C-alpha cells in the first residue's frame, strides 16, 4: 500500500500580491500582513506609555513592526506557525533574565487525582 500524507496541499504558499490593478513589488504571505498589523498598534501603545502622546503617522512603529515581522517570519515555516515562534520567543526571553543555564519548571503533580476502580 502506498500511503502518503495530504500535507503538501496545506503547504501551498499563499501570498498577497496586492490590491487589484496594482501589484506590490514584494509578495508576502498573508500571515505576515496580519502580524504586521498586530504589531503596529502594539508598538504604538508602547510608545504611548512613554510619551502619553499618539502620533498621526507612526513612522517608527511601522519601521519597528516591519523589522519585527521579518524577524519573526525568518523562523516560520509550514510546520512552525508564527504563533509558536512568538510564544517560544516570549517564554524563553521572559525566563532568560539570568545567565543561569537551567530553571526549574513547576512540578507536574498527579496526587490530587481521584481514583475509582469502576466507572459506576
Amino acid at each position, binding site marked *: 500500500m502506498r500511503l*502518503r500524507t495530504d*500535507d503538501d496541499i496545506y503547504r501551498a504558499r499563499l501570498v498577497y*500580491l496586492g490590491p487589484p490593478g496594482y501589484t506590490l513589488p514584494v509578495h508576502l504571505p498573508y500571515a505576515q500582513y496580519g502580524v504586521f498589523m498586530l504589531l503596529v498598534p502594539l508598538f504604538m501603545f508602547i510608545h504611548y506609555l512613554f510619551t502619553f502622546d499618539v502620533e498621526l503617522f507612526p513612522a517608527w512603529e511601522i519601521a519597528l513592526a516591519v523589522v519585527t515581522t521579518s524577524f519573526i517570519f525568518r523562523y516560520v515555516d509550514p510546520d512552525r506557525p508564527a504563533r509558536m515562534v512568538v510564544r517560544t520567543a516570549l517564554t*524563553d526571553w521572559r*525566563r532568560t533574565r539570568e545567565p543561569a543555564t537551567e*530553571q526549574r*519548571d513547576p512540578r*507536574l*503533580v498527579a496526587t490530587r487525582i481521584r481514583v475509582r476502580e*469502576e466507572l459506576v
Partner: protein
Amino acid sequence: MPADTRSNGTRPSDYPVSDVDDDVDDLVTSPDHGAVAVFQAPQAPRRPGGGPGPHGRPDGEHADIDSPFLDLFSGSAGRPAPPRSASRTPSARVAEPLRRPVEAPPTEPVRRPVEPPAAEPVRRPVEPPVTEPARRPVEPPPAQPLTNGMGGHGIGADPIAPPSRGGDPQPVPDEDAGTAAAVKPPARADRPPRHAAREPELELVNLPAVREPAAEPPARRPPAEPTPRRRPEERRVREEPPRPRKEIKKRQELAPRSKPVRPPKIKFADRDPAVNLAITEIAGHLTFTPNTVTAWYWLPEVRWAFRPDAEREALLSAISEQYAGLAGFRLHLRRTTRPFPADEWARTLDMHTPHPLGGVPGAPSWSDHLVNAQRHLLSVNHAEGQTYLGVTFARRSLGDSLVERLLRAFGRGVAEGERRKLGRTVEQFDEVLGAFGMRGRQVTPHELEWLLYRSVALCMAPPTALSPVTGGEWERGDMLALTEQIERYRTPYGSTVKLVNRMTGEERHVAVLAVGRMEPLEIPERHEPWLHFHERLPWPMEISSRVDVLGSGDSFKNLEHRLRMIRSQQLDYAEHGIDAPPELERLAKRALVIGDEMTTGLPVESARAHGWHRIAVGGRTREECLERARRLIQLYSRELRISLQHPKNQDWLAREFIPGEPVANTGYIRRMPVKLLAAALPQAASTVGDRRGDLIGRTAGTCRRPVFLDLHFPMEVRERSGLAVFVAEPGGGKSTLLGALGYLAARRGVQVTLLDPSGPLARLCSMPELRPYSRVLNLTGSEHGTLAPYSLIPTPLRSEFANGPTGDREFEIAVSNARAERRMLVQDICSMLVPPQVAREASTATLLRHAVRQVPAEETSTLDDVVACLASLDDDNGKELANLLLDTAEMPLALLFFGRPPEGLLGADAALTVITMAGLRLPDLKIEREYWSAEEALALPMLHTAHRLAVRRCYGGSMSSRKMVGLDEAHFMEGWRSGRSFLVRLARDSRKWNLSALVASQNPRDILGLDVQNLVSTVFVGRIAEDVEIASEALRLLRVPVNDGYEATLASLSNVDTSSASRLGFREFVMRDVDGRVQKVRVDVSYVEGLLDHLDTTPTGAAAPQSNLPTGAPDTEV
C-alpha cells in the same frame, strides 16, 4: 556550584542551595501533597567530621524535613551547629562580607547565652519545617566572626556537604541569594526602624510566606512569579542587625525567636511550585478533566515480523476502519515501556524447575545461575512496549464540572449520574476497538496510574526499584503520589528538558522530537510501521500522538476550503498578470483527486487523521540524550524518509505526553488518511518464545525482547510434539546452540542426552557445575554390541498404556510396530554395511528381508543371528552376503553392531550424557557412496544407530519426567526408511514421554524430505547464504512466505562486519516457536560463566574466549 560538591550531582548549578537538603533527609515526606514517605537509612559519610553538634544532635539531620511531627522529637532542632560552621570557612560567599561585619560582632556575645534549648518546641510547631535548615546555620557561634570572616555563612544548604566541600570554593551556588543580598544592602538602611519594631511577629509573619509554595500548587503560578516575592524576605534578613540592640530583653523572654538572622526564604518561595495535572479523576477506564472525558484502551501487541503481506494489509485495513469509526473524536495514542520483569521471570522459571541440579562447591549454584540471568536481562535493558489509546469523547458541561468541584469538597468526585450516563456512551468504543485489528480492551485504573506516572516522569526509570516492599503491590493512588518527586528543569531555548527524581536522585534529560515531513511510504511491502520503527534502537522511547479523526464530511470540508484558497491564489496571479507558480496547479489537482476519493470512496478512504506525533528520547546526560536524538533522526530520515524535527519549547512538548494535558503547539501537524495512521502501528512487536524457559538471547528484528525457551513447553502446555529442528550452514552456530540448550536443560534437572559425532560438546561435561552429574560415552572406544540394532528399539511396556481392552489393543499394535521397526532398522544397517554395489542388487534386498524375517525381531536378537541365518541359506548369494557382513566385522568399529549390548550402558542417573564418536570420519554426502572409504562408509550405520542409542536412553525412566535429547548431524538420516520412521517416532513419542528432541541438520531439505515438518514445534534457522533454494526450503520449514524477500533475511543472519578482525561474537537465527510466531533472534548465553568457552568449536577458541561475549557495542547494527 560544582555538582560534586553536594549530594549526587543531580542539581543544576543555579538550583537553590537549600533544596539540596532534600537529599540528606532521613525521611522525605510531603504531607501536603503525596503522603509518600520513604525511609532511607542515615548516611554516615554525609556527616561532617565534627559529627554531632554540641547538643549531641548530628548536623544536617532533619535539615529540611517537611514533617509536622518532627518538632515533637527534636526540641533542639533549631540549634546552631558551631563546629560545622567553623569548618565552613573555605566556601566563599558573595553575601558574606556584606552581612557578616554588620551583624555578627555586636549581636553575638549578647545573644548566645539567651538561647535555651527548652524553649524551642514552643516555637517550632508554628514554624514551618521548611525554614529549618536555612535558619540554623545562620546563627553563628561566638568564635565565628574570627574564623568565618570570609564567608561560609550558610544560607541553609551548607550543612549538607561540608566534608566534600573541603577545598572547594562554591562559585555559583547561591547566586540569586548571594547577589540579591549583595545588591540589597543599600535598601536596608531606610527600613530598619519599622521592622525592628515588628520583630516579635516576624516569625509568625514568615510562616505563611514559607508555607505558600506548598499551599499554592493548585493555582497555577508562573514560575517567574516567586522572584519578586522573595524581596521582602531578603530585606528582613538584612535588617536583622539593628534588631538585637533594641530587643535584647524581649528576646530573652522569647528565647526561641532568638535567631538573629532570618534566612532568606526566597529559596523556598520558588522551590515548590507544583501544578496539578488537568486530570481530576480516574474512574474505571475513564479520565476526567474539567472539560473533557477520555476513555482509555489498552492495545495488545500485534505480530508484524515475518507475516505474509496479505495478512499485514488485512490488519492495517481493519485498524484503519476502527480509526475511521472514531471519526469526530480526538485520540491520544500513547506508547510507553515497562522494563522486563526479570524477577518475575526468574520466579516462574524456578517454579517450573522442581529439581534443579544440585550445587557443586566452587561452581555457581542454581540460584547464582538465576541471579546471573537476571543481571544479564537488566543490563541489556529490554523494555516491553505498552500501548494505550485514549478517546476523548465528551465535553463536560459547566454544570457537571461544578458539581464535581462541589462533590470533591466532600470527597466524592464526579457525580454518579454523570458517570452512569458516560458509562452507556462509552460502550460504543468497546465495540469499535475490541474487534479484529486493534483488539483493544479497557484499561484498569492501575494501568492508567502507571501511564500517568510514566508520562510525568518521562523516560525515567519506573518506580519498581523504589518499592521498599519487594513483591508488594502498588496500592491505588501510590503511583500518582510518586509524581510528587519529579522535578522539571528547562533551559531557555534548550533542546532538552531535565527531569530529576528527588527521591532517587535520578537525573534524566529528555528530548522530544516531532514527526515532520513524511514522504510516501509503502508500508507492508518496503517499510516498517513508522511508529514501531524506533524500536530498532536499543533504548526505550516514548511515543505520544494526538490525533483528531475527521469523518468524511469534515475532512471534505477541510480539503475544499484549502482547494478554494489555492484556486483564489491562482486567480489572484491571473488578475495581476503574473505566472502562477506551477506547484499551485499541481496541488490543486491533487486536492481534486483526494476530494474525489473522499466523495466516492468508502468512509475509510475519506476519513482523515490530523494530528501531532512526538517521540521522546531520554538520556542520562544532555549529551547522551542529544546523541540518541540525533541517531533517531538519522535513522528515520535514512530508512523511512521521515524528517523528525527537534523543536524548541521542549517542556511543553514533554508535557503533551501526559494524558489530559493540552497539545503543546500547533506546529508539525500531520494530515493523513487514517490508513497511514493505522500503519504507524506503535503496538507492533515481535515477541517469540515462551516466558517460562531459560533465557537464550534476544530478538534482533525491529525490537529487542528477551527470548526464553522451555523445550518442554510444547508438550506440557501446548500438547504438541517436542521436536525442534535446527538448520544452518556449517559455522552457523547449530552445535553451540544445541550445547547451550543442553547445558541449560541439564541445570534445570532435565535428563539430557546429546549426540555429538564430532565431539566438542563433550567438553560440557568438564564444566565444574556439571562434572559430578555428567558422563561422556565415546562410541569409538566402546565395547562390542553397544550399537546392536535389535536392542536399540525398546519393547513397549504394558504399563505405558491405558487399562482395558482398548489399551490392550494399543499395546499389541505398539509391540508389533516395534518389531517392524527393528526389522527395518536391521535391514537398513545391513545394507549400509555391505558395499553399495551389492546393496543395490535386487537379490540382496530379498535375501536380507528373508533373513530378517527368520530372526525373531526381539530385543535379545543380534546381528550375528542374521549372519548365521544368511549363511545357512542354500543360496550362494546368501552365503556371499553373510561373508561380506563378517568382513566388515573385522573392522573394530563395526564390532559395535555385533553381539549383545553390555548391561547398564546408559544409566538413567547422569543428568547429562554426551555421546561422541571421536575420530570418526564423516563422509561427504555429495559424493557417491561407492567412493567413500571403508571408514567413511562405516560412519553411516554408526550415526544411524547412535541416534537410536541416544533416544533409547530416554525410554528408561518414568514417562512424565522431563527428558531432552539433542542430535547433531541428523542429515545422515535422509534417504533411509528407518531414518524417517525414527524421526516420526521421535516426534510422536515426544509428547507421550515428555521428551524434547532437538535435531540439527545442515539442510532443511532433509527434514522436509522426511516429511515430518507437521510434527515440528520449534524451528531455528541459521545463516543460509550460499544457496537460494536451500533458503526457500528453510523458509518453508519456518512457514514463512517464500519469494517475499525473506531469503535475503536468512542470508544476512550473523553477518560479519568485514572491517573487523575479531570473530563474530554472536549468532543469529530465525526462530519459529510453538505458537507459530517467527522472529529473528540473537542467541546470547554469555551470562553463563564459562559456557561459551566450553562450547567453542572454533580452533582458536581457547585463545580468545573474550570474543564470544556479546559484541561490545550492542547498537552497532543500527
